């Protein structure tokens, strides 16, 4: 017994650290050499996966991070305007030189057929600017000095100081403007950061909503999964195997099928509402709206993410010996105290792992809110998808995605500080 206690406190002495093999090589070197071949072979085996992850995961993430701060689609096509922006501070009223540079750039865009691309970049910040660029560029060929009058004659909108501010921002390929946009901020005519108009505020609120919903879903999953996992861990093997199949069944079913079945169940003419109406609990004209809104998102996502909570909890609960709770009871604890003081603390690694897993998956969930979320149940990933697919503002999508990633990393860090990442047990 005392030997074991001593070995726990044992620190290697200097003499032990200086051990050598028979032929005089230091023991550590000899050990490293002896295992070199095995280590090389191991590396060789994981190499394909390493390359795969590098190419398909790390590289795209790097690309995304880059895209969120780098957009050359305007700055590449305005050599003359760039010079003017460099020479004049923000807020300077555009003079004849500025209009001349603009006219020259528009001409070259017309020649390269790039005014669409450049216009689109400005259009992100100032809707309607794309047509302004295309139409003015068509006329730029025939313009003669003074260019200010010529351009303003082509379209009065060129006078707008806001437009010039946006062009100034876009004249540099590297910009933080997409992050500002992702946080509902913009630059005023003087280049100062201000909030966007209230009716255009979307993202910040949606970030908060996404966090809140993911948190709520995680909490609901925990409450629902805990008894199930406990049952799984304590039932005799035959019954627990059957129950496990029920838990895993959703895993084996397509996500789309599961989500659509929620539509069948929850829609206004769906099973649940029909039953409520038939039993007279709800009047026919006041059917409950349970889908295509936030409720639909929450219900469907809880269902889909539940196994991710049950499985880590189960894997932690399974090895907890029932004699712990018995011991606590025999020592005088009520069943509630025994649960709270003895059983619950031992399941923390599972709750942590399940919670983190469900939360991170929930924060980035896309398909379910897209299908059943309606207008109020959209999460931030739906906006990211919108900018990827519809508005084609990839830089904004990248900025939103990066912010999401940062939030998740922040939470991970918080979790590590509060619970400890060693306390994580996934299975």
């Amino acid at each position, binding site marked *: *017994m005392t030997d074991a206690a001593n070995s726990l406190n044992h620190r290697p002495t200097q003499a032990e650290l200086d051990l050598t093999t028979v032929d005089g090589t230091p023991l550590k070197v000899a050990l490293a050499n002896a295992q070199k071949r095995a280590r090389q072979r191991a590396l060789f085996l994981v190499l394909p996966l390493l390359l795969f992850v590098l190419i398909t995961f790390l590289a795209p993430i790097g690309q995304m991070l880059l895209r969120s701060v780098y957009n050359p689609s305007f700055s590449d096509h305005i050599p003359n305007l760039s010079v003017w922006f460099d020479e004049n501070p923000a807020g300077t009223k555009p003079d004849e030189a500025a209009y001349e540079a603009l006219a020259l750039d528009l001409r070259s865009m017309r020649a390269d057929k790039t005014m669409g691309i450049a216009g689109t970049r400005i259009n992100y910040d100032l809707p309607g600017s794309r047509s302004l660029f295309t139409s003015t560029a068509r006329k730029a060929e025939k313009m003669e000095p003074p260019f200010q009058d010529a351009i303003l004659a082509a379209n009065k909108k060129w006078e707008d100081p806001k437009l010039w501010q946006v062009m100034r921002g876009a004249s540099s390929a590297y910009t933080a403007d997409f992050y500002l946009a992702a946080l509902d901020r913009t630059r005023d005519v003087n280049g100062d950061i201000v909030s966007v108009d209230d009716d255009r505020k979307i993202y910040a609120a949606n970030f908060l909503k996404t966090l809140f919903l993911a948190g709520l879903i995680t909490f609901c999953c925990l409450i629902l999964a805990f008894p199930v996992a406990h049952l799984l861990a304590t039932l005799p093997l035959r019954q627990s195997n059957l129950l496990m199949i029920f838990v895993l069944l959703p895993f084996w079913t397509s996500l789309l099928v599961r989500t659509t079945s929620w539509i069948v169940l929850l829609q206004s003419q769906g099973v649940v509402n029909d039953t409520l109406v038939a039993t007279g609990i709800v009047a026919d004209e006041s059917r409950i709206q349970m889908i295509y809104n936030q409720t639909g998102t929450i219900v469907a996502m809880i269902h889909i993410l539940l196994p991710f909570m049950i499985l880590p909890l189960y894997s932690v609960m399974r090895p907890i*010996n029932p004699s*712990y709770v*018995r*011991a606590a009871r025999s*020592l005088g604890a009520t*069943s509630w*105290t025994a649960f709270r003081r003895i059983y619950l603390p031992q399941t923390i690694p599972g709750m942590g792992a399940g919670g983190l897993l469900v939360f991170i998956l929930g924060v980035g969930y896309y398909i379910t809110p897209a299908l059943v979320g309606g207008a109020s149940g959209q999460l931030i990933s739906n906006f990211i998808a919108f900018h990827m697919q519809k508005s084609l503002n990839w830089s904004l999508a990248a900025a939103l995605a990066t912010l999401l990633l940062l939030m998740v990393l922040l939470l991970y860090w918080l979790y590590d500080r509060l619970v400890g990442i060693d306390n994580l047990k996934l299975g």
Partner: protein
Amino acid sequence: MPKSGSVNPTPWEFNLRQDTSGDAFVEFDKVQKSYDGETLVVKNLNLSMPKGEFLTMLGPSGSGKTTCLMMLAGFETATRGEIRLDGAEINNIPPHKRGIGMVFQNYALFPHMTVGENLAFPLEVRGMSKAEREAKVIHALDMVQMGEFGARRPAQLSGGQQQRVALARALVFDPSLVLMDEPLGALDKQLREHMQYEIKHLHESLGITVVYVTHDQSEALTMSDRVAVFNDGEIQQLAPPAELYECPDNSFVAQFIGENNKLSGIVSERSGDHVTVKLQNSAMCKALAVNCGGVGEETLISIRPERVAIGGSVGDNSTEALVKELIYLGDHIRCRLHVHGNDEFIVKVSNSAGHKHLVVGEKTQINWAAEDARALNPL
């Protein structure tokens, strides 16, 4: 039930704890237990033990001994019958209100608490003040020589240390009854023997009542005041260790406790306490009638190996034996003999000065007293 006519006076005759008819501290009254409603795990348990006794429930696995312990602790409910603690029925009292200390087979030390917190737990749930708690924890740890380990986690302790902590935790709230469910099962032989003495000494110095469950007969004999031998859901015999070994009531006990030579036959004559048994090879053997039927009924004679003398034809029973095998065990020599058609007849020859040297294949004369041959029920 000591036999006054025995040639060997046995220690149990001087054991004062034997008479338990007084006021019982723990009492099982016609207790039955069934898990599935089809078979009885505990058939009809009647047991009463006085305060301060160390009682061991001994039996093979599945004999119902652990179930009895769990019913006493409150983790299993008795299907029928009454369990009384200090005169009060406790059948419907939940485990945490019984105030019974318990040591589990795997110790069940709470892994997320330090040793000190483990010990403070029962005091905490009893609402004891912090200062009082600390004093008691230190006292309990000192009692098991673990005073300096209070800040360790159970995982940082060796098996023997964990065992001591588990013991201290079961004692720290001063229970009058402590249950132990094979507490030494996971320890190696040497440590186990050491802990047996320690538990025994703790029991003596604290004056607690202990119910101890084990399947290790030597553990039961070493530690207990009385041993209840369980088999098939019933107590086969409840007696002090010496009586259990020397006067087994039935074949199961004779077989289960210690080594035993069996000779089966039919009772041919019965006179008073003694019977004459006709063995399978038609030889006659005189034996003490303990648990056998009348003339013409089958019986099994049980003889302890150390009660057989080699090299002489004196005594009630004497016969020729063929030496089949000799095993040298240091302090004694184990001889396997062929006796009355039984190939597995074991005799222990003490390795003392001038003992008889046997050779394999040799024929020798052996004998035993009729009092040492106990005619029991056939298995």
